[in-house]
């Protein structure tokens, strides 16, 4: 492993700060999450409200901190869910080969043919709009990448000598998969995971912006932009700060993921 790129280190620090902010949001935020004050709505940024207040008088800085919880939660859930499905199917396809592999890979191709946002959009229209819907919708579009990646790695691992040896010794196929194929397939998946956080943040925000994701009173950055967009010409702060928060988080993920990939696998090109 090569040294981590300086930019990637910056990304790691920023991401760590965002994670800390999310964890300690109740301690850091100047107001309670749901402190309504409709009579003081749309106050511009000031010493009292650093990022101003929204349409019902909530402190935007507070909402941004709590929004980090929502966004990072979505990222974690999507990554977990899609890696679980993708890696499972990928390992099976890669190890079993033959028609099993063909079937799994063609299904994967079909899902990959749908742009993530479009498939997520369709899924989100079918389900009731909520954070859970966002997670399911994005996971439905993300797993094929892991399936494809794992399948190719698993296939090459499965051809190695020690797997042959294990087979000859009569070790059962599930045991081979769990003990040999799976562990060796994980590194590239982990790199990919770190690299996908940014894309997931952006897709989740887009779904919420389209009204198909998180709902009030959940604090969610994309939703904050959606709610405030008609105010942009007059009350810029309602939309601007959530947008910057999304950008900063996605940036941190992307830079870190890029750096990790370069450090672990210098030959691969950025996507």
């Amino acid at each position, binding site marked *: 492993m090569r040294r981590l790129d300086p930019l990637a280190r910056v990304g790691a620090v920023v991401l760590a700060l965002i994670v800390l902010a999310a964890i300690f949001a109740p301690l850091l935020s100047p107001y309670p999450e749901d402190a309504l004050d409709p009579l003081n709505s749309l106050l511009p940024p000031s010493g009292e409200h650093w990022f101003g207040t929204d349409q019902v008088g909530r402190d935007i800085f507070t909402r941004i901190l709590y929004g980090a919880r929502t966004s990072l939660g979505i990222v974690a859930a999507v990554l977990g869910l899609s890696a679980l499905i993708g890696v499972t199917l990928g390992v099976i396809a890669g190890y079993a080969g033959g028609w099993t592999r063909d079937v799994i890979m*063609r*299904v994967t191709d079909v899902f990959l043919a749908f742009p993530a946002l479009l498939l997520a959009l369709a899924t989100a229209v079918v389900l009731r709009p909520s954070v859970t819907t966002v997670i399911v919708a994005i996971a439905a579009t993300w797993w094929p990448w892991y399936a494809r990646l794992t399948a190719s790695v698993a296939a090459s691992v499965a051809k190695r000598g020690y797997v042959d040896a294990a087979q000859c010794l009569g070790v059962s196929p599930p045991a081979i998969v769990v003990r040999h194929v799976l562990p060796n397939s994980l590194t590239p998946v982990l790199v990919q995971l770190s690299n996908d956080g940014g894309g997931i943040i952006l897709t989740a925000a887009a779904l919420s912006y389209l009204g198909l994701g998180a709902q009030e009173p959940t604090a969610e950055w*994309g939703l904050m*932009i959606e709610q405030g967009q008609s105010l942009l010409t007059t009350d810029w702060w309602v939309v601007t700060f959530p947008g910057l928060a999304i950008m900063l988080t996605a940036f941190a*993920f992307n830079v870190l993921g890029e750096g990790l990939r370069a450090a672990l696998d210098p030959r691969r*090109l*950025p996507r």
Partner: protein
Amino acid sequence: MLRYLIRRLGQALLVVAGVVVLTFAIMRLLPGDPAVAYAGPKATAAELAEVRARFGLDAPLPVQLWEYVRDLLSGDLGTSLHTRQPVLDDLMLAFPASLELVGAALLVAVVLGIPLGIVAARYKMRFLDFSVRIGGMLAVSVPVFWLALTAQTVFASNLGWFPVAGEYDASLDTTSPLTVYTNITIVDSLITGNWPMFTDTLHHLVLPALVVAAYPMGVIAQLTRAALIEESGLDHARMARALGFGESAVLTRFSLRPVLNPVLALVALVFAYAIVNGFLVEAVFNWPGLGRYAADSIRALDTPAIAGVTLLVALLYVLANLVVDLVQGVVDPRARVR
């Protein structure tokens, strides 16, 4: 080579078949009753039953799928519930507008992205490199709908440099009506010499195209940089250096050509992505493309229209992938083995 071609085409067809089935599944899973969407919000039960019968919505699912596939094969994508036009006709109007926007954006992305990548590679790990990398990463990380809203507010509404929304001033339809051949306004106005329409469309195109261009530009700059750095570390580049060529010459004369191939492949792949990413931008700028059509369709729960857009974009994806694979298969025989 022929065997590779046939195998790859066969794969693509299988994927297309899967796409059709999945699209049908989405269509049937959509909430809301298409009959209600068609007959209007206050329709009576008798009217609904009549609409259901007319669209075959009362048949069992496998029959509906079969009929859907049969209609598709004869080029019939159904009738939109909200425009009441054949979906294919609607797409023929909306798709060229999206093509116009995304085409302009990709042009900008390539023209700016590749030189930026070269500059970054030339000044690797120096200030310029970091600026380009940070800029590129920000362009990839920015939520595109937020960028669109912000750009619209700052440059159109506050500074007044550009029109706020639309493809061209609607009054031009009466003062300089456009004769359409391709339905791509900028192309048609150019070939028919309709200058008022051309300049106005160009003026309307600038902001949304720049916003759509952000993502592909970032990706292209990054890829160009990374590929150049890798390529310039290879033997033939070292050779050129040993022969006394300067670093800039090594990059542009010896390393750039092999790098362009993956970059152009990337453009093809990014194209389909940009169409969908452009949906959000179209919504903000009220661009009369697929995105606005899709948004209207979703709002009206217009199932045939939603399915039509989904199908079209998915086919574009398959097509883009196919083209990239085939071209690379021709250029690089190693790719055929995968």
